[in-house]
Structure formats: structure tokens, C-alpha cells
């Protein structure tokens, strides 16, 4: 935008010079007019070079403009008003009253545009109002041509200010997205490096320790492998959940694999994201967590658990199975009666509040299987 303003300033200056050159003999003080022109050229050069280097105003609700940019806009406006008023000194009163073009002409609009760019619509409007007042003062009357010039100035100040704010916001948004992308790329790189290096090494140590019948080392390595794996998963999730109203259910389920270090939990999920509204995804993941918590508490020390996530077109199905001691089919009701509402409340209740169903199948000695089915709305 600064470049466009610079073009406008220079072009309008050239126009003014040509204009003055054509009507040179009509001026009351031609030498004075040339002096003003030289001052204008000097200020144009200064403004074109300096203004883009000053910091922009914050376009936030708090009105806290940086002093240099504010000073620049004020000086710009003051110079514009001064050159405008100088018309009365260098030109004949006759010409002023009959509506001859002011000496700096359209060039003064540069100050309004500059203020609009630096401070948005509010500052643009303010500058336009001040300059318009100066226009009327120079003319000494409310002439039609002056009024339309003033209208154009106000319009330019508002529109350019609004556009400048929009452009700045878009730029800030872009910068945020770029920063977000960079962080994500870095975290993915880290995750990959850890997968290739540390995780593999820990798996190897666990394996070798088992061969050398050093069960403590094997357990230690396996536990650290699991812990590191869940950290890596968490790294990636942090990023994804930050900005969105929809979530990939897989990313909420993934950390559950290692949430119970002593328990072997196997996850089976599609390769594609399973996108659900953020709240649905969180609630469903919480229900799965509760189901696994249930396995950990009641299925027995040796029981393993399997979680299967399936993305049907109109619903998402999550099955949690264990090979533990199982329970008599009427156990869930008993559990609720006994105040242990794990299965009934935090699993079935959650899923039902999402408009879904939870089916629990169990036999003594063949584990428990919970199937959660949540519609996709």
C-alpha cells in the first residue's frame, strides 16, 4: 500500500507542477508558488522514504498508536494544510474566490491516504475532516466544488483506512498460519526422529534384555518406550486440537494405547482421519477411556485390550474388547446399583447423550466387549 501511496504522491506532485507551470503568469507571487512547490517536492521525497519504515498502528480495540507513525501522519497533515493555505498568499484573491484550483491540489490527499494506511478508517476520516476544514477556510466559502472535494477526501480516508485494516489483519492471520505450520512441521520432524531413533533403540534394549534374561531392564526399556511413544503422540495432538472445531478421533484415541503402562492395549484404526465435531470426538474418546479404565480395574492383571475404530459413512463405531475374566450378563446393572457407575454412567451415558448406542456383551471367562456407535450429524 505504501508503494501505491508513493506513486500517488509523486504523480500528483508532477500534475501540480505542470498545472502551476501552465498558469504561471496568473499567480500574484509566482516566485512564492515555486517556493511552495519546492517545499512540497522535498516533503514528498521525505514522506515516500520515511513513512513506510515506521511501525503501523495496532488495529486492536485498545487505542495505542506508536508515536513515530502518529507524529508522521500529523506532520504530513500539517504540511498539507500549510501548502493549501499558502494558496491565499501566492495567488490573487480574485482567483481564490472564483474557484481556481488550490496550489497543491490533489497532492494534499496524500496526507489523508497516509493517515488511513497507518491508522485505519478512524485516522483516515480524522485527517480528511481536518483537510476539508482547511479547504473551506482557504476558499472562504461553502462552494460546491469545495464540498465535492471534501466529500471525496472523506470517502477516500474511510475506504482506504478500511482496506488497510483488512489487509493488515489478513497479513497477521497469514503470519499466524505460517508460524503454526512451521511449528507443526518441526514437531512432525521431531516425532519422526524419535520414532527412527530412540523408540527403536528402546525396543531393541527391551528385546535384548529379555534374551539375556534381565527382566528388570527389559521392563524398564519397555516402559520408557511406551512413555516416549505417548509423548510423541501428545506432541502431534497439541497442534491439531489448537485451532479447530472438528477433531480427528484417532488422535484422541492414540494416547490411550500407553495410558496404562502395565496393560497391553492394541489399537486398530483407519489410515484416514476420522473427523467428528470437536465435542463429539472428545466425549467419545472419554467414553473409550472409561471403558479401558474399566478393563484395567476389573478384567484381571493378565488381560489385554483391543480397540477398533471404524468410520462408517453415517456413524463412527468404536469397539473395546478384553480377554479378561468377563462378568455375568447382569453385572452392569449390579455395578450401577452398587454405586460403581463406570460402565453405566461414563460410558453408556456419554454415548447416549451424543445420540448413540452402547452395547455391552460379556460371558464369564471370555472377557467383555463394548461397542459404541455414535451417529455423525
Amino acid at each position, binding site marked *: 500500500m505504501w508503494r501505491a501511496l508513493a506513486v500517488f504522491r509523486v504523480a500528483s506532485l508532477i500534475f501540480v507542477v505542470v498545472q502551476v507551470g501552465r498558469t504561471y503568469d496568473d499567480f500574484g507571487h509566482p516566485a512564492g508558488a515555486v517556493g511552495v512547490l519546492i517545499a512540497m517536492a522535498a516533503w514528498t521525497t521525505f514522506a515516500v522514504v520515511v513513512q513506510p519504515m515506521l511501525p503501523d498502528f495496532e488495529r486492536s480495540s485498545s487505542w495505542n498508536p506508536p508515536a513515530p507513525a502518529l507524529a508522521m501522519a500529523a506532520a504530513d497533515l500539517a504540511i498539507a494544510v500549510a501548502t493549501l493555505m499558502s494558496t491565499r498568499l501566492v495567488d490573487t484573491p480574485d482567483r481564490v474566490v472564483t474557484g481556481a484550483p488550490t496550489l497543491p491540489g490533489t497532492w494534499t490527499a496524500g496526507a489523508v491516504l497516509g493517515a488511513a494506511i497507518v491508522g485505519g478508517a478512524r485516522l483516515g476520516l480524522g485527517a480528511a475532516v481536518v483537510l476539508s476544514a482547511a479547504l473551506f477556510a482557504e476558499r472562504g466559502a461553502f462552494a460546491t466544488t469545495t464540498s465535492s472535494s471534501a466529500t471525496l477526501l472523506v470517502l477516500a480516508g474511510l475506504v482506504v483506512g478500511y482496506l488497510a485494516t483488512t489487509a493488515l489483519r489478513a497479513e497477521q492471520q497469514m503470519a499466524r498460519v505460517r508460524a503454526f505450520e512451521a511449528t507443526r512441521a518441526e514437531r512432525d520432524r521431531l516425532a519422526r526422529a524419535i*520414532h*527412527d531413533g530412540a*523408540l*527403536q533403540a528402546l*525396543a*531393541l534394549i*527391551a*528385546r*535384548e534384555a*529379555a*534374551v539375556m534374561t534381565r527382566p528388570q531392564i527389559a521392563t524398564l526399556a*519397555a516402559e520408557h*518406550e511406551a512413555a516416549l511413544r505417548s509423548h510423541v503422540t501428545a506432541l502431534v495432538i497439541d497442534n491439531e486440537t489448537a485451532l479447530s472445531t472438528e477433531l480427528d478421533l484417532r488422535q484422541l484415541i492414540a494416547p490411550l494405547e500407553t495410558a496404562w503402562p502395565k496393560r497391553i492395549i*492394541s*489399537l*486398530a*484404526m*483407519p*489410515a*484416514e482421519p476420522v473427523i467428528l465435531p470437536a465435542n463429539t470426538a472428545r466425549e467419545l474418546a472419554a467414553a473409550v477411556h472409561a471403558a479401558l479404565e474399566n478393563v484395567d480395574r476389573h478384567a484381571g492383571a493378565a488381560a*489385554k485390550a*483391543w480397540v*477398533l*475404530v*471404524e*468410520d*462408517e*459413512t453415517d456413524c463412527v463405531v468404536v*469397539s473395546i*474388547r478384553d*480377554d479378561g475374566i468377563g462378568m455375568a450378563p447382569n453385572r452392569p446393572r449390579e455395578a450401577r446399583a452398587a454405586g460403581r457407575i463406570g460402565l453405566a454412567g461414563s460410558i453408556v451415558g456419554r454415548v447416549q447423550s451424543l445420540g448413540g448406542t452402547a452395547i455391552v456383551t460379556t460371558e464369564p471367562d471370555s472377557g467383555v*466387549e463394548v461397542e459404541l456407535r455414535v451417529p455423525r450429524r
Partner: protein
Amino acid sequence: MSPDDEATPLRIVVVDDHPIWRSALIRDLEAAQLVVVGEADTVAKAINVVQATRPDVVLLDLQLSDGSGVEVARAIGESTHVLVLSASGEADDVLAAVKAGATGYLTKSASAAELLDAVRRTSRGEAVFTPALAGLMLGEYRRLANHKEEKRPLLTERETEVLRLVAKGLTSKQIANRLVVSHRTVENHVQATLRKLQLHNRVELARYAMTQGFDDAAE
């Protein structure tokens, strides 16, 4: 195990870029009387070694220093039994390797006993599925089912049922009991799910090559 285990020991190629992992795997395989006929740490070496030695099973890591094991599977998968042994569960890589012709997948946290069992089954042409792989396959078939394309592979209801049970951690024996079919039938269903996907992948590649070829000719 199969009757020819005694007569002719299985010949294995180990592909892994981690030297200590490689030697640990080789030690475990040799301790079980299998013969390791070659090893490699890069994609290029792996393809050469496999073509030179024609092993019964290639034990393939997906993370190699000069690329992905998927490229190895693509190059040799049609003629050799490939068992993927990977540290990460990178879903896309695993799926790509299986589509390229690998018939089994294990994670590196598998025990030596599980590994040996998987190698033997792979050598007999059986599919070695982890529940995680079954979950990926179910997802892939679901994705294909949503495509408009006519020649896409679809699972029968029975195959879907079997794959779901594998994903839920049931062994093929348990699945056979639950569905009241023979163990062999279950194996056939599992293999069918794999074969359809690999066949489809080959057709897709051929079609892609053809359209690319025509485009090049037109230019």
C-alpha cells in the same frame, strides 16, 4: 510347523538400517535354525540382495537410510514373501507396503517367538495380520467403497466380519470358533482381503502407467 522345515531350512533376507537391530534379528533367526542368506541397510542393496539370493522370506524394515521399505516391497513383492517389521505404526507406510505386496506386518515390540512364528507363516504364503493392520485394511476398504469407481475391490460380508474380529484381537482359532467355520476358512478369508487389495493396486498402477504413457505420446 510345515513338514519341509527340517529338510530345507528357510532362507531369509534381513533388511534394516539399524546395525544392532539387524544383528539381533539375525541371531534370533539363526538360533531357530533358519538361514540368513543376505542382509541390507538400503533400498538399493535390498533389491539387489533379494534378486541375487531369492529368499523364502524378506524381513523388511520400512525406515531405510536412502528411502522407504515400501519401495523394496514394490520392487520384489510380487515374487517374494515380504514380512514388514517396523518400529513405527506409520499408517500410510504400512498400508502402502501391504498394497505393494507385503503379506505380513509386525511391530518391533513383537517378541522373538512371535517373530519366528510370523516368518514361518509368511514363508507358507499365509497373511500375518496384527489387529492394527486389520484396522487399516477395514479403513481402506471403507474408503474404496465410498469411491464412484467401478472396478474397486469390495469385501464380502463374511470377509468384513473376519477382518473386524482380527482387529479386535481374536486369533484365527477363536474366530473359527465364533463363526463356526474351519480354521482354514478363516485363513482363506484373511488372505482374500489382502489379495484383492494388492490386485487392485497392480491394476491401478498399470492404468496409471498407461494414461501417463498416452499423455507423453500426445505431447
